[in-house]
């Protein structure tokens, strides 16, 4: 049923899809770490720290990812910082999605009732312990569905690194499309591959949402 151009190039495109998944994982992990740190600093940090975090969030929320990628690609080399493109791409993606992740975590943490803090503190728990025992276990469950959504946004955004010449699924698609003169079949096909990755992840997110409540 699939067009032959697609079947002929399926091996190449699969390897490229593997690269997309790899790039996604390599970016999700640090962006989750950044997101958690920024969320905590925004909630508990001193005023100057909170202002600093706000500036970071403001810039990342207001400037396109592509412009940040160009910054890494065109501007940083002039200041003597020559990152390997893959590392640079992952770094920019992590910083960019770290901001989105921080909102996911922050929203989950502050949505927990104050009484949870009161109860933990009244037992004599200190802040770190309260976070570890009481707050995080609940916040992670609350954050799971929006976290998965953000991961899907991130996976889709890995396609942008093709514009700064990194090889992944979208880049491979362009190569194959140019070679075979079958852009419709090829881009249709890689859209399907993205769909397969993202849709299965979103179903997993729904499954998590279903099991979110405790004791059910």
């Amino acid at each position: 049923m699939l067009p032959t151009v697609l079947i002929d190039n399926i091996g190449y495109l699969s390897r490229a899809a593997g690269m997309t998944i790899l790039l996604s994982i390599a970016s999700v992990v640090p962006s989750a770490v950044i997101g958690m740190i920024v969320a905590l600093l925004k909630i508990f940090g001193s005023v100057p720290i909170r202002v600093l975090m706000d500036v970071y969030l403001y810039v990342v929320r207001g400037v396109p990812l592509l412009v940040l990628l160009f910054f890494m690609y065109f501007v940083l080399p002039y200041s003597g910082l020559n990152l390997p493109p893959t590392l640079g791409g992952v770094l920019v993606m992590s910083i960019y999605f770290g901001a989105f992740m921080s909102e996911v975590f922050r929203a989950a943490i502050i949505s927990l009732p104050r009484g949870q803090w009161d109860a933990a503190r009244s037992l004599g728990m200190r802040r770190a312990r309260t976070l570890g025992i009481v707050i995080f276990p609940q916040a992670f469950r609350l954050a799971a569905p929006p976290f998965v959504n953000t991961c899907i946004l991130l996976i889709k955004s890995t396609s942008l690194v093709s514009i700064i010449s990194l090889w992944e699924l979208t880049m491979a698609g362009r190569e194959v499309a140019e070679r075979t003169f079958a852009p419709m079949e090829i881009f249709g096909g890689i859209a399907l591959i993205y769909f397969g990755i993202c849709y299965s992840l979103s179903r997993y997110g729904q499954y998590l949402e279903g099991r979110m409540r405790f004791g059910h």
Partner: protein
Amino acid sequence: MGVDSGHPTVQLRNVSVRFGRMQVLKHVSLSIDRREVVVIIGRSGSGKTTLLRCINFLEEYDEGEIVVDGELIGYRTGPDGQRIRKSEREIAAARSNIGMVFQSYNLFPHMTVLRNIMAGPIHVRRMSRQEADAGARELLARVGLSDKVDEYPIKLSGGQQQRVAIARALAMQPKVMLFDEVTSALDPELVGEVLAVIKQLARDGMTMVVVTHEMQFARDIANRVVFIDEGVIVEQGQPRDLFSNPSSERLRAFLKRYREGYLL
């Protein structure tokens, strides 16, 4: 077991609290003896909950001193008499000896009933799991919930959740228990089972400070009733005297509203 008069477990001296421009507590002094049950009554917004929350420093007070079991709460006095905030560790250590039960139960929803009760002993007291487990089961038996050990809080009625919350506070073997309107969120038919547990605690000689709207309960359980209005203690005394013979106009008005069936 009578009240240990002259041996205060909790002492408030001249305590004031401001929220912005509003003064919630104005130079309140109160002393609670060992094994004494003090019930605090007053309208909502009178400052009674704030007073309670100051005792374990969930609310910070701006002036005065609070001493629990010989230890200054929240602050120490510096060499020049200035107030120095204690470290988080010291404040937490002091709180671990003061049990508190809240209006909205505040059980940890991600833990079973047993885990809720074991959390404090294990993570704060550094007790072994077996010891904490045994203690928790014993306490659950005391509040009549032995069959709910492995349930999650959401499966329990409000009354049952509140009894678990009491057990959780007791697991820390507190010097004093604070109850903050613990029946206000309950359906009327569930109030009794919670009050019964508190009454039993009173009989066992626990030192308690109880904020409540249940006047009959206050009369039954209190060694002393304290009436608070607009941030000051207006009147205090034995429940019999206070309820039948209030000396202040404000308490008379308060009791009148209560008898006329207003929600306080």
